């Protein structure tokens, strides 16, 4: 069992990281490296005749992309309290390519809209156990309950069929 006790990071920090990544990708597009990548894509032979090394350009693109993927995985994992790698399956990986295509594969906003459409319910449920699926828990009996501990009472009480004990104490 891997307990991820030391990981945290606020939600807004995740938004900031994602925004920085989006800006970086937009900047990459306008940089000379971005133009080189586009040249490789359009015609490798012509690009190498202009002195652009396809190997270097491809290696650069793969390295940048791997680093970004690592950041994404790291942040997704840090939302959990216990290690879980089930959400990074082969199907999900193909799905991300499809989502990006639907959003627009050459566009920075495309990635964001693609993610909004492509994030599956089980990602959220796995990342925030008791967060999305136990919608009840957050507003337990009219009181906001962001920690979701009321939902645990609810789950427990459904099991023991004694609703009276739920949410009585300060949780």
């Amino acid at each position, binding site marked *: 069992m*891997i307990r*991820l*006790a*030391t*990981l945290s990071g606020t939600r807004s920090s995740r938004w900031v990281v*994602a925004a920085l990544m989006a*800006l970086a990708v*937009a900047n*990459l*597009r*306008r940089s000379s490296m971005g133009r080189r*990548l586009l040249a*490789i*894509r*359009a015609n490798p032979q012509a690009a190498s005749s202009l002195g652009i090394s396809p190997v270097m350009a*491809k290696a650069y*693109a*793969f390295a940048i*992309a*791997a*680093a*970004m*993927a*690592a*950041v*994404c*995985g*790291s*942040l*997704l994992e*840090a939302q959990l309290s*216990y*290690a879980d*790698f*089930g959400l*990074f*399956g*082969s*199907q*999900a*990986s193909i*799905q*991300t*390519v499809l989502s990006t295509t639907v*959003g*627009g*594969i*050459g*566009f920075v906003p495309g990635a964001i809209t*693609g993610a909004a459409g492509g*994030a599956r319910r089980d990602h*959220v449920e796995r*990342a*925030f156990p008791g967060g999305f699926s136990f919608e009840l828990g*957050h507003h337990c009996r009219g009181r906001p309950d*962001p920690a979701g*501990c009321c*939902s645990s009472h609810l789950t*427990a009480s459904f*099991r023991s069929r004694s609703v009276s004990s739920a949410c009585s104490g300060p949780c």
Partner: protein
Amino acid sequence: MGAYVFYDLWPGHGVAWPLALIIAVGVSGAIGVAAQLLVMGRLRRASLTTKVIATLALMALIGGLGDQYLSPNGLTRTAPSFLPGGQFHFGAKLSVSLAQIVVIGIALAISGLLLVIQKRTRFGLATSAVCENQTVAAGMGWSPDLIAAANWALGCGLAALAVILIAPVSGLTVDSLDLLVVPALGAALIGQFESYTLTLLGALVIGIGEAEVGLVTTQAGWAEAAPLLVIIGVLLIRRPAKVDRSHGAARLPAVGSGRIGPGALVTLVVSFALVAVLSPSWLNAFTTSVVLSITLLSIVVLTGYAGQLSLAQFGLAGIGAFVTAWFSAGFGLPLWAAMLVAVLVTVPVGMLVAVPAFRTQGVALAIATLSLLVVIDDLLLNNPGTRELDEVGQSAAARDLRVPP
């Protein structure tokens, strides 16, 4: 899909199995024709990357429809075998069932038939012509669309037959059938998508390899991973494929300008307003989407800008997640430090994914990255060893949830 039809008709509705087989293969062939006419025909001038993505989308669509049709309630259907039972014993340890021998015999027969079609008939000649140069083939009076549709029908019908034969072994779920694509494509890759004989040989080697790895190591995951590693090795040492001359003619996906306009500012303001306003559960959902968008951005760089199709990006994210979990749990690193380590570990793995890209492109690259993805998945992320850790962790999490603090 054909397999679903078959196993619905034959045990489900009591149709005799030869009739059900013909109907199933026919339906599957019709789906292939529809795919060519409705989707692939329109993409004739698109780049190879676009075509591969389109076929992946078709796979997801048909798989999803099949799932709805097959098990709307999440029930898995059993796939009984209609082949004769019985076992042959060779020595003490080795035994081969009659059904397996029949399947291999069918595979040999079909390969021979295809070889004859390819070498001896006008249809085979026309297919090669369309493959070499569509314009010239059309000039000779062969419609490229018609030939392509016929080949799609042939391919899909054969695929249905193959899945019907293999379903009693592999099980009839969309997940297990989707993953069959990887070794199958690997076999086709060994045959260079040209030679039936080499492909058949490759398929036998991969299949036997998967079974025999069990004799060498009992570590879970290696049985699936080892043949794929062999495929990647073959891809690396083989001479590079012919230079693709279709460059320049192909239509590439559009690419944005990358200028940061007022729209970006508006998005930024709106999103931080969302962070402040949303209820926690919605915020969790949005945050997950936003984090996920980082992987999609990496695909924009790789596939959108550089034109390199990699299907393994989210698998790489999984490696990042694994390293993060490992280092934070084992060494107590804070998130930023664990993330740094994750990046340092993942980038070399990403470069490993890149190596096939230096020598191949398009379909072969997609298969190589898909193979690597499955290797990552089998050896690390979805390995029974790791999964056991997961389940212990999850049950502990559930216990924590249930016990009020």
